């Protein structure tokens, strides 16, 4: 069994409304040091795969088919044995 973690973030030039709002609230709470906040998704998938490479390939396919909208989002992948 493998465990994959997909981190999906909005592309740099896409307005991140949630991130902005959180940054605002952080400042209001006195966390002035928070310079830039961006909010994305973490998607954890447990996979049946025999090798990390296989899991990686499967995950990539899932991202392309469903998990990520490449018009507005970028993603990174991590796989580990579970």
């Amino acid at each position: 069994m493998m465990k994959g973690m997909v981190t999906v973030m909005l592309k740099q030039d896409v307005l991140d409304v949630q991130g902005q709002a959180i940054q605002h609230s952080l400042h209001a709470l006195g966390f002035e040091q928070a310079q830039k906040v961006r909010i994305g998704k973490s998607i954890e998938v447990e996979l049946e795969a025999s090798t990390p490479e296989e899991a990686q390939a499967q995950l990539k396919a899932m991202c392309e088919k469903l998990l990520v909208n490449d018009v507005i989002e970028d993603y990174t992948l991590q796989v580990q044995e579970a």
Partner: protein
Amino acid sequence: MARTIRCAVLVFPGSNCDSDLFKAAAAFPEFAPEFVWHTTDSLDGFELVLVPGGFSYGDYLRVGAVAARSPVVRALQKVAAEGVRVLGICNGFQILTEAGLLPGTLLHNTSLKFVCETTPLEVGNAQTAFSSAYTAGQVVQVPVAHGEGNYFCDPQTLEQLEANGQVVFRYAAGRNPNGSLNRIAGICNEAGNVLGMMPHPERAMAPWMGSADGHALFASLRDALLAPA
């Protein structure tokens, strides 16, 4: 009586404006609406496809994302390419963008809150199959009800949309409920057969609803579909 127009009202698990859209179409004797379940894999024979609002598949992950990958949307992509008229409202609009039938995407409202209220819209282009019964610049009252209606696209796309007259509806100045670029409320594709809009014309069909201004949208479609080719 004139011939009737077969139109499909798509139903996804979680659609909740399907009946409303059906009723709006059925208010015209020329439309013969039918519900079409998300697992159906052909839309052949329909002249108009209506994609309703709601929360298809819970709108989990991204709004419209899962619906856009369903069998019926694959069929929709096919008939849309053939020129069949497609109207997506609210979640329907979100599905059309996820399915690649319309450019751009719909982000969270800048308020980060759901907003439901009747909103003034300007008709940006009254020459489409969806808007011919309006006049350009006319201000109409149509309700919005969404949490993710903030239209976003890259600058080139935006330029093209504007240049081609693809912005069919725009929120009136000062009344942008969600932060959409250029106050965009509804756009069509380049070919002009696919329209997506966040406001709900099916909720503005009679004075008792608060507005009857949505009626003209369906009347436009009827006229376009019945016009001699």
